[in-house]
């Protein structure tokens, strides 16, 4: 079943006097249990892509459909609710709730459905899974960058989202921590059927996924096995198009 579908999504930004095409016609279908890894460098548009997929930012063109609902057609409140229930996000700039310990921050979403002790127990399990149980009683300013990312991942996972969007969840981790995080992501996809879209800046971080694609200059490059139409139609790339520039 297609859980998330991006259909011709475009986004433009003004950068100084110039308009920058952040996303140019993104087509992407993600099914339950899919683990999609997107390889993109800085300024490739990967964070924009995830923000649009999460419904945090509207696309300029195209549609984002989550679980049969066009996100643009949903009321703001309904979109915000999705982010609390069905869509989990891990951002590089994540923060934890002011004044709370890591454990309580992660347990917070479970406080209303479980007793506090149970919620904290669950939070501890999730923190252990992503390898930061030792930080349970720390405060935000005491965490390293790598620990912060993993706390954000725990915070997203504890709500058992159906879709997990993770922006460089392996940044700032050493080899073993990285493998642990990728292993958790893979098992969440394989065992719990969570759909995952993850971004990473280099290849070794991508190979635990099920599907691999690349984002550069706002264009998604997929392996031929996933290709629907032509690869990339760069204007004027074919002599017959009549738009070939005559240089020199």
């Amino acid at each position, binding site marked *: 079943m297609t859980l998330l579908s991006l259909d011709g999504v475009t986004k433009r930004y003004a950068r100084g006097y110039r308009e920058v095409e952040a996303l140019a016609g993104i087509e992407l279908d993600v099914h339950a249990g899919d683990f999609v890894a997107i*390889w993109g*460098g800085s300024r490739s548009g990967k964070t924009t892509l995830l923000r649009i997929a999460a419904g945090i930012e509207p696309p300029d063109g195209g549609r984002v459909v989550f679980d049969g609902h066009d996100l643009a057609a949903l009321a703001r409140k309904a979109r915000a609710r999705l982010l609390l229930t069905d869509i989990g996000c891990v951002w590089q700039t994540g923060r934890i709730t002011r004044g709370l310990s890591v454990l309580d921050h992660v347990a917070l979403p479970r406080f209303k459905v479980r007793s506090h002790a149970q919620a904290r127990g669950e939070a501890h399990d999730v923190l252990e899974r992503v390898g930061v149980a030792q930080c349970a009683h720390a405060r935000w300013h005491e965490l390293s960058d790598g620990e912060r990312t993993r706390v954000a991942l725990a915070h997203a996972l504890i709500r058992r989202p159906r879709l997990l969007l993770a922006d460089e969840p392996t940044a700032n981790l050493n*080899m*073993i921590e*990285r*493998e642990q995080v*990728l292993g958790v992501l893979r098992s969440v996809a394989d065992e719990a059927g969570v759909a995952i879209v993850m971004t990473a800046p*280099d*290849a*070794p971080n*991508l*190979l*635990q*996924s*099920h599907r*691999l*694609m*690349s984002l*550069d*200059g706002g*264009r998604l*490059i*997929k*392996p*031929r*096995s996933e290709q629907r139409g032509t*690869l*990339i139609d*760069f*204007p*004027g*790339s*074919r*002599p017959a198009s009549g*738009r*070939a*520039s*005559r*240089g*020199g």
Partner: protein
Amino acid sequence: MSVKYAVLGLLAQRRGYGYDLVQRFEEQVGPAWQLNAGAIYVALDKLEQEGLVRPIAASDGETPPTRRRTVRGAPRVIYEATPEGLERFEDWMATGSSMSPLREQLHLKLALSQPRNLPRLIELTYEQEQACFERLEQHLGGAPFEELLSSTPPWSAVASVMVRDAEIAHLQATVEWLRRIREAMRWLHERPEALRSRT
């Protein structure tokens, strides 16, 4: 030739017949080499001529390995390394390794291109990046390099992961290069005046 020594090395590990060697090569070296089976047989012939490997003679009594048949009914010949072969293999392991030159068609096209080729060259970088992805896909789900540090796998597994990681590293570097030149070419393509002053 390296394939010759690889086949010799496989036979130094244990005896084997042609197709078995093809499979073991693929298993231990990985998909990157893209070796066809014929090269293994050519190497075997050469090794036999040089006296570095020899077919095992059928011994009476037990089921002689040489009497087993291949799919097409030809006798399946099992080879083993000779003492000279083992010695030669050790020599090869001890010598330095040369590096192959980097010869890609795209490099030639770039070198011989004209400004009017820019749009097509830009598209070629996308196609090439896609090709890199398809190769990377073959490594999906494979044992990650990191696993080596946290567990104690047998040496053969360690070695094969390290060899695969070489291809992953090469593909990653290629994609990064493609993105770099694509950005440069797009920049030039959008500013024909900058190009004109360079031709």
